[in-house]
């Protein structure tokens, strides 16, 4: 039998390219989880993921009620996609998700970013996406250290025990 030798994860570089509540929270939970374990964490927000760090939208993230087979009614019955099309339903579902998260002591996006950066985590915005959405540095949350290219991000993602995660 060969001896199993694991290298500990020391650093995570997380790329978030989607802007729904669940995608953004997956990123935030993973980044915060890393700093909580004493690891380095760097997060790169790109494309629709930029909503999570754009002042105007970061507190207004939604979850999609259409085309999500895992979406269920309270009680567990399937959530009909047609119902998700009705005005206000997506907003209602999103509010419900946020209130469920609050019960588990999962913070709001801005507070979550506070927690991650307080633990030494670093937040970056993708230059290409910022240009595409015609955003400026001042449109972005103060948590954002810099607007950088994906190449810059890769260059800071290396080292022994480093992992790149795409959500």
């Amino acid at each position, binding site marked *: 039998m060969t001896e199993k030798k694991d290298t500990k994860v020391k650093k995570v570089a997380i790329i978030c390219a989607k802007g729904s509540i669940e995608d953004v929270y997956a990123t935030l939970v993973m980044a*915060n989880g890393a700093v*909580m*374990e*004493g690891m380095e964490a760097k997060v790169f927000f790109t494309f629709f993921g930029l909503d999570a760090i754009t002042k105007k939208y970061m507190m207004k993230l939604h979850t999609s009620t259409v085309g999500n087979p895992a979406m269920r009614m309270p009680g567990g019955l399937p959530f009909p996609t047609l119902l998700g099309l009705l005005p206000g339903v997506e907003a209602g579902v999103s509010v419900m998700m946020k209130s469920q998260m609050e019960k*588990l*002591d999962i*913070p709001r996006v801005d507070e979550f970013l506070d927690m991650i950066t*307080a633990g030494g985590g670093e937040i970056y915005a993708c230059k290409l996406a910022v240009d595409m959405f015609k955003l400026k540095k001042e449109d972005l949350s103060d948590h954002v250290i810099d607007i950088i290219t994906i190449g810059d991000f890769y260059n800071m993602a290396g080292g022994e025990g480093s992992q790149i995660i795409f959500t």
Partner: protein
Amino acid sequence: MAQKTYAGVTLEVTEDGYLIDSSKWNEEIAKEIAKEENIELTDKHFAVLKFIRQNETGLTIRKVGNSGIVDIKGFYTLFPGGPLKISSKIAGIKKPTSCV
């Protein structure tokens, strides 16, 4: 189950070094566990330890940050390299299971 001797008392601990019986904990034991983590405990550390011992159930970094004793950044400074786990170990309580 492992055993460890802190401040002249032999205590049962988990594989990760967390005390099994938190009622056996005292400040001298805390100081010796902290030494293993390379932390010199100050009054501020003890104030945080007291809070987390009182709020063991459902303990999160966020709760410590809202305790009024220390903010989250300060919590990371007091217990570098994994504040919730390290402070829980020093406080003699169970290993935290929270993801936030």
